[in-house]
């Protein structure tokens, strides 16, 4: 082996690792011989599933849209403004028309499981439910199917 002359810390040693790398390197690569006998390769579809994700497809678009929608992006997100807004409304002084709009929005972002709370407790539950919806939007669905990292 050749001796490295560059400072040690700046050299990266390439390395193979898991099955994903092996598949990535090997599948569909190398010399092809026309005359070869076909043997059945069991499970070859499973090996190629992850490899064949097409970025331009409706499935991918929907997945991207879902992923983008569940992101918790502070700069681009209007939700953090809502709790304050609601507090203003519930502390009185706003017109009934405004209140109706806010109620509509709140229903959408809180979801079904808050319904019971809302019935019984009135204004104090609003802050709770809005905060629970925020933590909900932050949770990850773990949809990534990649085995490698």
């Amino acid at each position, binding site marked *: 082996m*050749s001796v490295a002359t*560059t400072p040690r810390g700046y050299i990266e040693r390439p390395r193979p690792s898991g099955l994903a790398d092996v598949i990535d390197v090997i599948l*569909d690569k190398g010399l092809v011989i026309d005359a070869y006998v076909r043997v059945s390769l069991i499970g070859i579809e499973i090996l190629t599933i992850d490899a064949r994700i097409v*970025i331009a497809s409706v499935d991918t678009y929907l997945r991207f849209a879902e992923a983008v929608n569940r992101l918790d992006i502070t700069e681009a997100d*209007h939700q953090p403004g809502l709790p304050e807004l609601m507090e203003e409304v519930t502390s009185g002084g706003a017109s009934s028309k405004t209140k109706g709009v806010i109620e509509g929005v709140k229903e959408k972002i809180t979801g079904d499981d808050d319904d019971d709370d809302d019935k019984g407790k009135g204004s104090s539950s609003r802050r709770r439910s809005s905060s629970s919806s925020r933590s909900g939007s932050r949770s990850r669905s773990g949809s990534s199917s990649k085995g490698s990292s």
Partner: protein
Amino acid sequence: MIYVYGVLRRGRRADVAAAGVEQAPVRGVEHGDLLALVSDLDGTVLAAAREVRAHWAVLDEVARSVTVLPVRFGTVLEDDDAVRASLLEPNAERIAELLEVLDGRVQLNVRAHYDEDRLLADIVRASPTVASMRDRIKRLPEQAAYYQRIQLGEAVAGEVARRREADASLALEALEPHAVASLVEEPRGSDGAFALAFLVERGAVDAFGAAVARFREQAGDRLRIRFIGPLPPYGFTDDELRAGSPAWA
């Protein structure tokens, strides 16, 4: 039947310790100056996930010391005579040519993935179109926004594709000067950034590695970079054994 792994120059040390497909010992079939690495096969069905490792291990071991042309995974011929008659003999010239060009060179793969959440957040911040589509959809009930969601996803995919292309160009710019040839392969998975393969002189692997380290530093935590090799020249023998010289030779 005979399972075929690859072809190398006869006379080069090529005894293989690694077990082959179906745990069979690996041996050579010779013709002229060439030697095909093969093993005997009993069945007609192979468990792909296990045998793909055997295929890898055999070629990996041989490629550590000599140049070997990989044959595509799953290639099986009738018997030793068929290895000579359908592989070595009719393609002797082409194989010799490839062996000469690839001699003393190895393949190094550089793969990069994005952290998907971070990539998408960057896109929402950078693209007003995506941001406003996203805001609009958030106010609609899920069923009502089906087509809007497809449009949003399509816009996001467009941005992802643009970033992939830009990042692949950056990587090529940084690494190509240290390689003899390069290949742009299809990135895998929706979080794949780029998949590049480089043909590098054995003696230049460290210099290439240093360039990868610099590029990694430059990319920061935006990209998860994987550097894999040295490999037999899998990507540079993607060849259907017909006449003609490789474009990069």
